[in-house]
C-alpha cells in the first residue's frame, strides 16, 4: 500500500531531514512511528499525507507513483487518507458535528446524507453530548476525539496521527489507542507518531524508528 524507495527530504537549502529511507507498509497494518524530537516524524507524516514532495527517491501509494502526479490527483488521493494532528486543527467557528462532517462536505454530500453517520460516529467516540459544542468549550481529550472522528468519518484507507496522545492524560491516551486498534481491525492502515513508550510497549505493534534521517522497522 505504501512503498518508499530511497526517499530523501530537505526544506529548501536546509539540512537533510530524511535520508534515503526505504520501507513497505502493507494494507491493514498498524505501526508506531518513533524517534527523538527533530528526527523527522512530522515530515514523514506530511510525505505520507501527500502534502510534501520528496526531494529525491520514489514514493508509491495506492499503486501510483506519487512523484509524478499533478496536484488535482494528489488531492483526490488525499481523500483516502485521514490525519489527526497534534494541535487538532479544528475549525473554531464550526460545531463538533460540523467539524467531523467536513470531509463529507468536501466529498459533496449534503447534510441529509451524512447526518446519521456523523451522529453515530460521535456516539462511538463518546461525544454525543458535545455534538453542537464549539471547539473552544471542549477539553483537550474531547478535541482529540473530534479530530479522530473527522479523520475517520470518510472511512479512509490510511489513518495518520501525529502525537495523538500528546495533550491527554494516560487513561484517555489508552482509550484513544484502543479506538485506533478498533479502526485497524476494521481494515484501516494506521501509522501513529508518538513518544509514549508505555503505550508502544502495551500495544506492541511494529515500530518505524527514525534516527539521524534514516529509518529502522522493528
Amino acid at each position, binding site marked *: 500500500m505504501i512503498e518508499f524507495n530511497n526517499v530523501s527530504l530537505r526544506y529548501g537549502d536546509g539540512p537533510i531531514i530524511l535520508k534515503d529511507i526505504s520501507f513497505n507498509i502493507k494494507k491493514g497494518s498498524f505501526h508506531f512511528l518513533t524517534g527523538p524530537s527533530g528526527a523527522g516524524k512530522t515530515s514523514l507524516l506530511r510525505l505520507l499525507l501527500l502534502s510534501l514532495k520528496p526531494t529525491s527517491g520514489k514514493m508509491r501509494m495506492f499503486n501510483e507513483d506519487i512523484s509524478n502526479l499533478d496536484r488535482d490527483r494528489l488531492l483526490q488521493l488525499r481523500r483516502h487518507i485521514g490525519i489527526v494532528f497534534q494541535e487538532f486543527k479544528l475549525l473554531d467557528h464550526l460545531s463538533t458535528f460540523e467539524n467531523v462532517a467536513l470531509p463529507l*462536505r468536501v466529498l459533496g454530500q449534503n447534510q441529509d446524507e451524512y447526518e446519521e453517520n456523523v451522529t453515530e460516529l460521535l456516539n462511538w467516540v463518546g461525544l454525543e453530548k458535545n455534538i453542537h459544542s464549539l471547539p473552544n468549550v471542549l477539553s483537550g481529550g474531547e478535541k482529540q476525539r473530534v479530530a479522530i472522528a473527522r479523520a475517520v468519518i470518510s472511512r479512509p484507507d490510511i489513518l495518520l496521527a501525529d502525537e495523538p496522545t500528546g495533550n491527554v492524560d494516560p487513561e484517555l491516551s489508552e482509550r484513544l489507542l484502543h479506538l485506533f486498534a478498533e479502526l485497524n481491525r476494521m481494515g484501516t492502515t494506521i501509522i501513529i507518531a508518538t513518544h509514549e513508550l508505555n503505550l508502544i510497549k502495551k500495544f506492541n505493534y511494529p515500530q518505524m524508528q527514525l534516527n539521524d534521517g534514516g529509518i529502522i522497522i522493528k
Partner: protein
Amino acid sequence: MNILNFFQKDKNKPTNIVPVNSVTSRTLVLLIAIMTFLSCLTFGGLILVKQSATAWSNDISREITIQVRPIEGELMDANLRLAESIAQATNGIADAQALSIEESENLLKPWLGDDLNLTELNIPRLVVVKLAGATKDDLEKLKTELKVIKGASLDTHDAWRTQLNNMATTFIMSGSFIFILIVVATMLAVVFATRGTMASSREIVDVLHFIGASNKFVANEFQNRFLIMGLKGGLIGGIGAMLFFMALGLFSKFYLTSDSSEQLGVLFGTFSFSLFNIIAILSLIPIIAFLTAITSRFTVRRFLKQIAW
C-alpha cells in the same frame, strides 16, 4: 420570501466553512455599500443628464425664436405683432406668440432678481415659434421675410443645440469614466480583502487541503462568502442611493424656492426615474455582488496555485 429573513441563518443549513461575520467582512460590506452607493449615484446622475439632454434637445428642436431688438424710432409692440403674423403665415409653423413683458421678466428673474422692471431696460423681446414640420426652406423663407422688420432676427437654436449635445456627451463620458473607476476601485478593494481573508483563513485552507478539498471547492467557499458580502453591501448601497434620490426630489420640491427648483428641474429634470430606470439602477446591486464573487474567486485560485504541492 421575507427579505429580512434572507440573510438569517437557516438552522438546517451547514455553517459557512469560511466565516462570514468578521471585522474584515463587516469593513468590506461597508466599503461595497459605499461603492455601490457612489456607483448608483453616478449611474442615476448619468440617467438624469441623459433624460434632461434628450428633453432639452427635443424641446429646442420643436421651437425657434424670433428676436426683436429695440431700435430707436421703431414701435416694439407693432414689430412683435408683425413678426407673429409673418411666422404664422409660414408653412410648417404651428403657432407664434410674442412673450409678454411679464413672461420676459420671469425668464430673467433667476439671473437679475425679483425687483426686475423690464420697462427700465432696453432689452430685445422674443417671439416663440412652435414648429410643425417646417423644412429648412420654410425657415429660410421666414428668415428672408423677417428682414422687413428692423432689428428682427431668427434663431433656430442650432448652435445652442450643438453645445448642449456636446455638454451632455462630455457629462456622460466623464460620468461613465468615474463609474468605471468606482467599479475598478471596488474590485481592487475586493482583491485586497480576499488576500487578507485568505491570509487570516490560512488554517482553514490548510485543513481543507489536508482533507482533500480541491482548489475548486475552496474557491467556491470563498466565492460564496464574498457573494453574500457583495449582496449585503450592494443592497445597503443601492437602497441608500434610491433613498438619496427620493430625498433630493423632496428637497427640491419643498425646500428650494420655486425659481431655484424650476432651474434645477430645467437642468436635471425632476429627480424622478421611470420604473425602467429604477430597475437599471438597482441592477447594479447583483452586478456588483457578482463582480465581487468572481473577483474573489480569481484571487483565491491565484493564491491557491502559489501554494506548494
